[in-house]
């Protein structure tokens, strides 16, 4: 699996993503600077990392969502590439329209930084293929704007089509229907507020995120 990580000014979980990908795939992922319009050849999987791209100016993810690399990212998505947007990466993916909805300020107004219990929703994506449907995993969250919002019709569609990947067991931010992560229509783009790349080895406090990267790698290996 050839993986890449897009880096924006203000990304600060890019190193975490790189470390996780290297640890799991055994290869250094390609680092993609947001200003390039040349998409690296042969990529299978791209992570849009967390952080505070452009200082969260205007809206979280608004500037990054209009970066020069974004048309290339969209083309990659349209060609069936796998994309994981984590935290600010999730916000960026909703801003680009690759995923529906938006992330609002946390209902409790506080920045929430702690381990969260997530329930794996029944769905059929590579990202969750190594988890038992309905099982509980522990993945850290760290965000101020993680309150997922979409109109009722969109929420019904996401639930009806099995596009909710994860729900919070104990909703930390007011997200509609406890949604922590959602999938694109082809189930190859996942956006989530929790940080699976911060739960891969144990030294950070857990390893439940590891199976997500392994799931993508296995799916690509057998594809």
């Amino acid at each position: 699996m050839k993986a890449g990580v897009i880096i924006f000014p203000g990304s600060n979980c890019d190193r975490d993503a790189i470390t996780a990908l290297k640890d799991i795939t055994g290869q250094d992922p390609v680092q993609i600077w947001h200003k390039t319009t040349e998409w690296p050849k042969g990529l299978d999987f791209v992570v849009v990392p967390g952080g505070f791209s452009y200082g969260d100016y205007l809206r979280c993810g608004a500037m990054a969502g209009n970066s020069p690399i974004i048309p290339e990212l969209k083309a990659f998505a349209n060609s069936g590439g796998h994309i994981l947007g984590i935290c600010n990466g999730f916000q960026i993916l909703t801003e680009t329209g690759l995923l529906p909805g938006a992330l609002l300020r946390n209902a409790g107004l506080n920045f929430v930084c702690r381990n969260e219990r997530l329930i794996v929703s029944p769905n059929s994506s590579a990202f969750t293929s190594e988890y038992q449907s309905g099982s509980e995993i522990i993945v850290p969250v760290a965000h101020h704007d993680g309150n997922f919002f979409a109109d009722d019709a969109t929420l019904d569609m996401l639930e009806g089509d099995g596009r909710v990947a994860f729900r919070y067991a104990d909703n930390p931010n007011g997200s509609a229907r406890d949604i922590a992560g959602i999938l694109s229509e082809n189930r190859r783009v996942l956006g989530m507020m929790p940080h699976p790349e911060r739960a891969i080895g144990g030294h950070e406090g857990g390893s439940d995120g590891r199976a997500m990267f392994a799931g993508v790698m296995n799916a690509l290996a057998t594809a």
Partner: protein
Amino acid sequence: MKAIVYVELKNGVLDPQGKAVSETLSRLGFDEVKSARIGKRIELELEDGLAKDAAEARVKEMCESLLANTVIERYQIELADA
């Protein structure tokens, strides 16, 4: 020419900042406050000599592509001679 763009959360979208402001105002004794909504005001200075209609169409395009996220926000444009 100047364009003033007002961006605010749509009705029905929770505005926790507005809620906190409203609660604090009540605590300070401003009991007449029933609710507060917080928005943004963006001031754009445009090139001189633009026709008003054309300028408004361009600013609308700016709102749709960057200034507002129409999933959660609505916007309003005012044009004024600088």
